[in-house]
């Protein structure tokens, strides 16, 4: 499994890496009320409908809803970083690091358009030495 040529594993289960094609975030949408969730689920927690969930491909664009600039974290975590909550175009909200921007409140605008990008998981590997692919946000436009 530690073969250097092995395909990276997804950092979270809602990140899908197709055999052919680009990685994407997977969500699910309730056929009864339209609520959108990250990943898959059985029951809608908004309307409690069962067996109405449909798997969808979430957009790779969105806008910054809110954020924090993290200066102190656990040992080994690189700081500062911008923890961003992003509303994806077409539905779904996801949290991740906002990259390629100065971690300065004067440089970060609420509502700014962002692009979802897929990159190596900051060099983090599991016990078996596997590499991982994660998702990040970068400013768009």
């Amino acid at each position, binding site marked *: 499994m530690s073969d250097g040529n092995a395909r990276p594993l997804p950092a979270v289960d809602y990140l899908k890496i197709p055999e052919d094609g680009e990685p994407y975030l997977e969500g699910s949408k309730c056929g009864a009320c339209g609520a959108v969730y990250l990943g898959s689920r059985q029951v809608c927690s908004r309307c409690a409908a069962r067996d109405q969930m449909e798997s969808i491909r979430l957009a790779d664009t969105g806008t910054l809803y809110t954020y924090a600039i993290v200066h102190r974290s656990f040992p080994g975590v690189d700081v500062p970083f911008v923890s961003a*909550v992003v509303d994806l175009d077409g539905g779904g*909200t996801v949290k991740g690091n906002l990259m390629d921007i100065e971690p300065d409140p004067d440089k970060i605008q609420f509502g700014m358009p962002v692009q979802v990008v897929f990159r190596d998981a900051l060099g983090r590997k599991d016990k078996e030495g596997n590499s991982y692919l994660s998702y990040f946000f970068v400013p768009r436009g």
Partner: protein
Amino acid sequence: MSSDVYVVGVDMIKFGRFPERSVPDLGAEAALMALDDAGLTIKDMQALYCGNLYQANAMVGQRILQQIGQTGIPVVNCANACATGATAFREAWMAVKAEVYDVVLAVGVEQMGKGLLGGGGGGSGIPKEGLLGGGTMPTVFAEAGMEHARKYGTTFEQFAKVSVKNHHHSTLNPKAMYQIETPLPEVMNAEMISYPNTKLMCSVNVDGSAAAVLCSERKVRELGLMKRAVKVRASVLTSDPWQERDLVMPDVNTCTRMAAQEAYERAGVGPEDIDLVELHDCFATAEILHYENLRLCGEGEAGRFIDEGQPALGGKTPVNVSGGLLSKGHPLGATGIANIYEVATHLRGEAGKRQVKDARIGLTHVIGLGSACGIHILEKSG
């Protein structure tokens, strides 16, 4: 119509760091203090409701009785994140309200380590903190504060003023962990943890315990304890209803708004009738949100509310005159009962230098992230 429920004894230990002591030992101390405050003994208690989070699987309530008297009464151990103490108190209240028991004891106790809470994530694979954004408590509440900034233009300085106020209040509270003034520049220039929360805008992890004796109206009269008794006008617990972003961004607002609405209705009072509030200032940003959630001010007015000093002692609605979680400290399982102690002490007119003048009605509020909201409205009697 069931009878009213009263608090006849309530107390808390001075919060601090007691690594050499055990959780049951800390809980037993507050339990005995509350019993002494009521003039009753453990032999008078018909049930014990114990709130503790970090040893939730370890029968803390029974271990407290092993220290203060094993009378064989039923014990319920509660865990509900930072709403744990309020949940234990509410379980006790419900048992008396339902007329199952006449006199019961509620204890909240916690022993904390230092450092950041939350984050880390679980599961297999690789660590997620700092990879998928941040999940520590200061970060979660920074994001919630920035949501308010987005809507209403609330500033870093306004958030920081909450800490200035609560640290000032704590200088008047001998049971607070800290009694230190922190002027605005000191708060704003303290180490940044998660913008906009600096270190002085984060609650203090401390060890602590608090306890209350709850009693039916009939029993209060029989025991002749009405003079210092405090009536529970409302006890409400909610969880977080579905919100668009809440699986990514824990929602502390909606559950608080629902609980406040129900508590005001049940008590038959409005926010204008509340003389003091102990609310869940786990971070300075959180307190700003709850001014509006509890309707102490209008929507979008929280920044002005703090600018004008309205939540300060002597202001329109004093908030966290104990020093709050920011300076009194936040021993998770004890916090919800320590808040009851603070408000009850004012209603009894026994709060010394920090006494809110002529306090008749007070409100306590806690949030357990994930989420649970507990609100109690208390009224002076006698």
